[in-house]
């Protein structure tokens, strides 16, 4: 994309107006430098419209939900269940009862992996679980634990040199023994957007369940869980302008009805005797204990905020920024980008290495200029190993990211190269 084309795309999206909604973007850091926040894949910043809801909830409506027979209890319950309806509409879920509030994406994925350890769909030796090499640890470890508990076998798709899923082995990997396919929608390391609908159809053809980690998708692009044709879809609030402590598991109603509970406790029961219990209807069957009420209400406000701007507009803006960032990074000597080199089927997380400068040191120099990025393996050690490295630097954008911030990143990279003066003599 040329810079003129970039201006055309950015012209229809008033990023400066968006930025005014995010108080933290006015912060000065490290000797009074303006904050350049390029770590949104890690966690997004929060607009005033979401932050105000926190105070309003606790100042005016605070109560426990579903059990308080008073005015505040009714208001809090309505706000909490209202957030569930907003989230359901946001991802085009057929029914709000299919939206289960969790702590985060990790808990949502662990929930699914745990309820497949027993009950009517409990896995057994000989069964296979298929994941991919580009998963976040939160979509690897729960399945390893499930396989250890049940004797099932864990298998995975590899990744091509271009950072796409290697689908050449799909016939071997997805077979009559496959009980679960769990994959990431958009990679947090490579940025790759995976062909979820196509793979879901393949998995369903052999009777497998399809689980998707949508942590890096839902914040950045329109997602329609029904159109994707998957069975479970997990994402987290704090990466989509919401607070920490609230995540979502969407699941098909008949599966949520059929599968056993995850955590036991208050709110998830119908009746309890000393011998045994029966369970509440979904989604409450999967929401034991007092949930993160204010956080759910804030997530509902975040959905309102994103919807008000428009997810298609946000996706367009991010694609423009990602194109610009990829083009500029490509012109920096010694920079190697992990994942797709063009902004086609690609999210806004861009991981890269700089010859001769370790990612930690790159990030430290950037930080000294006020540029916040992430350095390390970004909870994706296997995909780094796939590319023969142990760590990378990751810059990630969002609806408030400007081309000038990408320019600041590039300037910081040049400074890092200069400061460390090329590769050390022992560099491998």
């Amino acid at each position, binding site marked *: 994309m040329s810079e003129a084309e970039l201006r055309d795309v950015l012209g229809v999206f008033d990023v400066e107006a968006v930025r005014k909604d995010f108080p933290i973007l006015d912060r000065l850091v490290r000797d009074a430098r303006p904050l350049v926040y390029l770590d949104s894949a890690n966690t997004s910043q929060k607009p005033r419209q979401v932050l105000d809801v926190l105070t309003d909830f606790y100042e005016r409506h605070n109560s426990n939900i579903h059990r308080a027979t008073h005015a505040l209890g009714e208001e809090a319950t309505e706000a909490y269940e209202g957030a569930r309806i907003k989230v359901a509409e946001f991802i085009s879920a057929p029914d709000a009862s299919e939206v289960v509030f969790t702590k985060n994406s990790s808990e949502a994925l662990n929930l699914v992996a745990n309820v497949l350890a027993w009950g009517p769909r409990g896995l057994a030796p000989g069964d296979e679980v298929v994941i991919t090499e580009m998963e976040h640890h939160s979509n690897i470890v729960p399945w390893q634990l499930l396989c250890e508990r049940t004797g099932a076998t864990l298998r995975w798709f590899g990744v091509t040199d271009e950072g796409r899923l290697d689908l050449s082995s799909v016939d071997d990997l997805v077979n009559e023994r496959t009980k679960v396919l769990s994959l990431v929608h958009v990679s947090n390391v490579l940025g790759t957007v995976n062909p979820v609908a196509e793979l879901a159809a393949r998995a369903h053809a052999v009777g497998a369940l399809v689980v998707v980690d949508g942590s890096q998708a839902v914040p950045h692009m329109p997602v329609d869980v029904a159109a994707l044709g998957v069975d479970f879809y997990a994402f987290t609030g704090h990466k989509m302008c919401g607070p920490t402590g609230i995540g979502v598991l969407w699941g098909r109603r008949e599966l949520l009805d059929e599968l056993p509970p995850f955590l036991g406790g208050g709110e998830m029961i119908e009746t309890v005797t000393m011998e045994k219990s029966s369970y509440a209807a979904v989604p409450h069957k999967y929401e034991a204990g007092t949930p993160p009420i204010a956080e759910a209400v804030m997530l509902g406000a975040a959905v309102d905020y994103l919807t008000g701007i428009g997810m298609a507009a946000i996706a367009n803006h991010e694609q423009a920024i990602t194109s610009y960032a990829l083009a500029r990074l490509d012109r920096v000597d010694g920079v190697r980008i992990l994942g797709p080199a063009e902004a086609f089927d690609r999210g806004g997380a861009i991981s890269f290495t700089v010859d001769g400068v370790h990612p930690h040191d790159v990030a*430290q120099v950037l930080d*000294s200029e006020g540029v916040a990025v992430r*350095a390390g*393996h970004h909870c994706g050690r296997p995909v780094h190993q796939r590319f023969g490295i*142990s760590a990378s630097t990751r810059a990630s954008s969002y609806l408030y990211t400007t081309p000038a911030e990408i320019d600041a990143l590039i300037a910081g990279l040049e400074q890092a190269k200069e400061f460390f003066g090329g590769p*050390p003599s*022992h560099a491998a």
Partner: protein
Amino acid sequence: MQLESMYQEIILDHYRNPHHKGLRAPFDAEVHHVNPTCGDEITLRVKLEGDKVVDVSYDSAGCSISQASASVLTDLVIGHTVGEGITAHDEFLSLMQSKGAGAPDEDVLEDAVAFAGVSKYPARVKCALLSWMAWKDATAQALGAQPAASSDGAPIPEGTSQ
């Protein structure tokens, strides 16, 4: 921030030209430590004779801070007693936990005093400590493998490794 407050020239020198790098035999114990948050790794070997540290060799991958720290560590412990090494370890650990307010003993820490600036950056303290934790672990194992009569070095203190 002044980058130079963290990346002092001594640190960059050790990073570019690390001392005692490479794995050598013979050795009494070998350990492999990782920094789980960033993936930095070190394999480190210790060779003792009685309570004397005869050799520390290592192979590592990581940032300038972790690489330089390993190099400085070997300078401080090779040829010294285990007890002196532990004293240096404790002094270095204390410096790294000082949040920039440490007054390191240069007689004990020598080049390692250059890491004082690193202690202001919590995210980097683990980088600086990676090789020291590996050395302490390997030394404890080497001492444990020695016949009881000869393990008269200073005891390895517990509870300081985190």
